[in-house]
């Protein structure tokens, strides 16, 4: 039930943010009142926090500030920052957003719980994923073949909606526990090899 509660809560927040954004965009200078894809992505990222359990995380430490890293996607970074500000205003679980412009080998992502890799980094994501393999950082991207490269969640645009695919085996290898509900809602799930039978 707890999961559902979270899901519902997330949806509520989604609606909340969306409406606020509509208002803000309308105030900003007209334009059609359409929720932008980037905003939806931001909410997705925020929601993933609730369906993933990190190895060092204990159940009761929900209030711990989660860190979302955004690599090479300025727009998404701004949306997330805005979301974080609103959440803080409402006294919700706060998140921290770290923006990375582009990949550099010296960048250490160990502070991040989630790392989003933007399209601008399409050339680098394989290397990044390889570098982060086995480390408890949920890697998310909206580039093709991300999963096959060893990424964990790939956002896919389908029929005008944003869906996702999950590489469960990569997540398990990294010591992350993904909620079955998250998995259930996924388009596809790459499962690890079944245990010995």
């Amino acid at each position, binding site marked *: *039930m707890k*999961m559902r509660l979270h899901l519902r809560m997330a949806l509520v927040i989604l609606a909340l943010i969306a409406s606020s954004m509509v208002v803000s965009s309308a105030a900003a200078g007209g334009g059609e009142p359409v929720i932008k894809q980037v905003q939806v992505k931001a909410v997705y990222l925020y929601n993933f926090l609730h369906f993933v359990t990190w190895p060092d995380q204990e159940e009761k430490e929900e209030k711990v500030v989660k860190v979302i890293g955004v690599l090479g996607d300025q727009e998404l970074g701004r949306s997330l920052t805005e979301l974080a500000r609103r959440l803080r205003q409402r006294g919700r679980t706060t998140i921290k957003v770290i923006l990375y412009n582009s990949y550099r080998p010296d960048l250490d992502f160990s502070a991040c719980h989630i790392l989003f890799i933007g399209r601008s980094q399409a050339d680098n994501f394989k290397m990044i994923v390889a570098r982060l393999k086995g480390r408890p950082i949920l890697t998310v991207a909206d580039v093709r073949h991300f999963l096959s490269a060893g990424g964990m969640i790939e956002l896919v645009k389908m029929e005008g909606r944003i869906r996702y695919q999950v590489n469960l085996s990569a997540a398990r290898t990294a010591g992350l*526990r993904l*909620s*079955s509900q998250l998995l259930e809602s996924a388009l596809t*799930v790459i499962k690890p090899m079944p245990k010995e039978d």
Partner: protein
Amino acid sequence: MFWRDVSIKHKLTLILMLTSSLTVLVACLAFYGLVVNHFQKVYKRDMNNLALIVGSNCKAALMFDVPEDAGVVLATLKGRKSVRQVILYDKQGHVFASYKASALKGTSVKEICSFSRKIILDDGTYVGRIVIEDDMRDMARGRRQILLILLLVGVGSLFSAFWLSAILRNVVSKPLLSLTEMVKRIAAGDFQFKKCSSMRGRDEMGVLCSAFVEMNKRLRDSHERLEEYNRTLEGRVAARTEELQNAMDDLRKSQAQLVQSEKMAALGQLVAGVAHDINNNISFIAGALPNIKRMTNELVVEMAENHKASPAWQMHLDIVSLLANAEEGVRRTKKIVQDLNAFSRSSHGQLVPVDIHAELNNIINLLRYECRDKAEIIRDFDPDLPVVYCQRDHMGQAYMNILLNAIQAIEKRGTIRLKTWPAGGKAYISFQDNGSGIEPEALEYIFDPFFSTKPVGQGTGLGLSITYNIVKNHHGKIEVHSAPGRGTEIVIILPVEPCKKADEEDGGVGGME
């Protein structure tokens, strides 16, 4: 105690209690069965649904092999207190996740009911199985509660049945009781009550009661009539007895009169014979006596000249007085014989119209020497007195006898009142003196022959009996009113018209006082 001896009151109560308790028992059992059955069904459906829901919530966890999520889902059953244990098996049959309720104390295996359900995906693949073990104690408790409620309902309905039977008892048994009481009282002979306590209504009891009251009324009426009859019976019997007594007395009286007249007739014949003989013999003496007297006188004249001083002279004097005595004896004997003849004389004789006043004057004239300085005769004759048909010399003798008695009853001086009057076709002739009167004891014998209170030589006792016979022969009556020391009144009542009939019913002796 037999069923028939039980009072209706108790019968009613018993039957009511029995039927109601039976009904309640059956209803309770049926209800209990239904409810328990229903509860069990609902319970099973519930549990199956629960297993289904929980199982499908665990689908994803099983699919993606996330036992933690399954554990979280199973743990949600914590809210259901009766669930003891939930085990989730994966498709290989290994325990995938489980949940165990913390408080497991006092739960025996028997009370645990387990529900198992396969978990199958939409595409039909079998991913696992869920087993929920539920504590049936709640069920049992629920059953017990229902039983308790049913018990309460049963007891309550029994009480209400008892109460109803009490009411019924009042409705049926009470009037019955009062009826019984009434009937008992009737049976004991008490008809004095008029109301039945429960006769107000128009139901069967009311009708019965009023019928009983009506019956009782009739019974009472007839009873009272009977009692009234009984009360008056004695009086009526007494009256009837008196009537009978009177009739008897009359009978005895008339019998006595019959005997009297028979006696008289026989006596009459006897007396006639005796009188005839005495008359014959007396006529010898009477014939001889004048001669003896004459011869004695001649003898004395002869002796007077020769033997005046001889003792025979003295004897001659004695003879003269003796002769006088003999003469007197003959005279009296003749008188008696005359009386006897009159007494025995048969009733034949001519009926002639007689003026009674003239007849009475005649007799007073005959008796004027007898009553010379003793009795004053007062005549109080009614000139309207008609001529009466009778045997003239017989009636004259009757008047004579009565008048002589009246004169003899007067000792020194007195009055004799003769009174006549007509009334109702009859002639009344009354002789009233203020002489000695008649003693009551003597009153009933004065008409008997030879009854006399007078010294021998003075009374023969035939006077009134002769008079009685004469009046009877005239179909008349004699009444006597007398009081000792005050006087006597004798009334002769004669029919004016000559009576043809030989015997008349009122020819007897009149009322004697």
